[in-house]
């Protein structure tokens, strides 16, 4: 059961907290909006990923379970 990062582009306001907390998987484009790597979150980064999700002030980041 793998998990992938999903950004809700309507909710996202470009706060950028996610890229600070999970730089291995999230980078910001030139306008401050997140580009999330379209790959499963490695086990070692799952805790950081959950932290990034819970820290998003706009609740725009989610972890989707993909079988």
């Amino acid at each position, binding site marked *: 059961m793998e998990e992938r990062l*999903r*950004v*809700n*582009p*309507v*909710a*996202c*306001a*470009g706060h950028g907290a996610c890229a600070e907390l999970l730089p291995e998987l999230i980078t910001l*484009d*030139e*306008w*401050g*909006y997140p*580009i999330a790597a379209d790959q499963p979150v490695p086990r070692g980064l799952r805790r950081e990923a959950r932290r990034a999700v819970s820290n998003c002030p706009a609740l725009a980041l*989610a972890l*989707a379970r993909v079988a």
Partner: protein
Amino acid sequence: MTDSLTLPPPALAPAAPGPAGLPRLLPAAGTVPADLRAHLARHGPLRYAGSPGRLAAEAAAAGLTGRGGAAFPVARKLDAAAQARPAPLVAGNGAEGEPASSKDRSLLWISPHLVLDGLQLAAEAARSTTAVLYVQRNQRLHARLAQAIAERAAAGVDAARVDLVPAPERFLAGEESALVSRLTGRPAVPAYRPVRGLPRLAPGRPALVQNVETLAHLALIARYGAAWFRLAGTESEPGSMLATLHLPGGRTSVTEVPLGIGLADLLGLDTVPAGPGGDIVPSAGGPVRAVLVGGYHGAWLPAAEAARLPLANAALRPLGAAVGAGVVAALPAGRCGLAETARVARYLALESAGQCGPCFNGLPRIAAALDHLAGPRPDQRARADLERWAGLAAGRGACHHPDGSVRFIRSALRVFAAEAGLHERGRCSGTDPRPFLPLPAGRPASDADWS
């Protein structure tokens, strides 16, 4: 096709042999709107399916796909609607936000009763007693439709009540989730949909949305059967469709054609083998430089290539194009393709709902860069910047507006590459500065424009 868990219900037996040949949706001649009596005289009474699953089975056998642009299999939507709890709200989508398309409003004007029949059938399939017809704001058209609905109510034809809802005049107003948003009283802007399936009116009630032309086809399939529907079109893309043509002489027409018809036949292009003289192809209306297929989220094709292609996704998709909602435009040789595309790109940028950063930041910058490329001796960086921004915008919005716009613009850069080379040297092959592709005047000023 139908859900494997349900047994296929018995197919509808046709009421009568269907009309041979085309047109089917539009009357044989003229544009006089058909009133209820004329409609019943031509097609007979509306044939309700009798149970929710039967229409889906017939639509599956017919291979009917949506005529709103996405070509989604109608049977799958009807099945999902039949199984959805609670019963979905049913909506006919006549917003037609694409400025180059006029087939939906033409259909609603000339054959409203076919659309309204289809809406009733969809409501039956969704087990719903109310339905909505969402139509772009046009006083005469709304008056006409209100009259048609009243006519049917007086005759007791309709099982479901139909409400007429005006759609804002925005490009994205007809996007499925924007329509749903509008029906809940919010602005008609697209919503983020992480899970595929029927869109939902918050909280919880699903919606069955079908383009008005799709509903009209359903109305005929219910009367004449799937086999009749398949008499036109191709094996994999059966049936007929309404196309909006923009001909090189400046004429615009809406015509009903079988899927798979050659673009050369459609546009009156001479089918000449590609020669060293470039891409210009003669036609009945004048020489043609390039053909736009699929509207402003579609793609350009060189005229010589287009002359060899059919209006069918099987042939168009491998080339990055698609049938879309049937908009086909033949760019006259005297026009500059880059300038035309730049005008449309600016319009598309301003039609962004302004919700998603990559879209409302990317599309305006792309449009500005394209405007530079459409002018003399553009900045060296314009092309590279455009490519970078296109990569950042596509696929990162809630809806397909950035993706479709980028596809359209990239196809222009491919097809008009020679033109771009001319512009770099300060020249242009265009001789006619008049705009060709249609665009509405004005642009959004406030959120109220989306309501």
